């Protein structure tokens, strides 16, 4: 593979990973009020290339956040126990939103790199024109 096509494919893998991260974040946000929901966590890892090759990024396994669920006091809730409390989710909206913003910025950075690699290869092709 040439440098430009590998640059484009590695940028595409980065955008794909960030898009998947954003998808899990929106799952978390939409389930913020679901009782007993544990937020999903994903981590990125570098796919190993051989030798000096360009190595793309990939998304690792989805894990569930094992931190404590929040307890909500509402005696009228159907799931409330004898103390009048029930378990909510462990989603913190502030963290999810900050993470979503970071994913967006990283996506934009990858998009910019993709665009630049495309510009460079097209200016190379311009040499063939008279």
């Amino acid at each position, binding site marked *: 593979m040439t440098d430009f096509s590998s640059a484009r494919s590695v940028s595409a893998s980065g955008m794909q990973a960030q898009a998947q991260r954003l998808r899990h974040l929106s799952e978390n946000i939409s389930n913020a009020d679901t009782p007993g929901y544990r937020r999903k966590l994903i981590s*990125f890892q570098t796919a190993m290339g051989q030798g000096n090759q360009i*190595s793309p990024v990939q998304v690792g396994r989805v894990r569930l956040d094992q931190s404590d669920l929040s307890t909500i006091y509402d005696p009228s809730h159907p799931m409330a126990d004898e103390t009048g409390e029930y378990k909510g989710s462990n989603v913190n909206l502030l963290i999810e939103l900050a993470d979503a913003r970071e994913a967006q910025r990283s996506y934009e*950075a990858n998009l910019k*790199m993709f665009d630049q690699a495309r510009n460079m290869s097209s200016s190379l092709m311009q040499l063939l024109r008279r």
Partner: protein
Amino acid sequence: MFENLTVFQTSAAMARHAGQTQALISQNVANADTPGYVGHEMPPFAALYSPDETAGNQRATRAGHLNGSASAQEMASVEMRGSENPNENTISLEAEMLKAADAKSNHDRALAIYKSALDVLRTAVSTR
């Protein structure tokens, strides 16, 4: 024939170097959120032609030499250590953007040199 002219050789090597740099920067940016990732960068193009090579690297002066030809088809990338983030990632997006702008301008410059040399040749051989 024409690729044996030094100006074509040098500008093609410079464009190739800029392309490799761009591919590495793309890799760094894609892995900017990967925990434990260590960034890579290319040594500057001028290092190819400096008389004192960077320490440890042997200088190839002929195509038959072990580490490539004199024009260095493939330059080895080096790791960027130091300045780790809390998740042991060494990428700073701002620095990568700066390097990307550099790579683009280097590539443009190399192509401009190539094109102008090509125009000179074309003028020389044209009948009109």
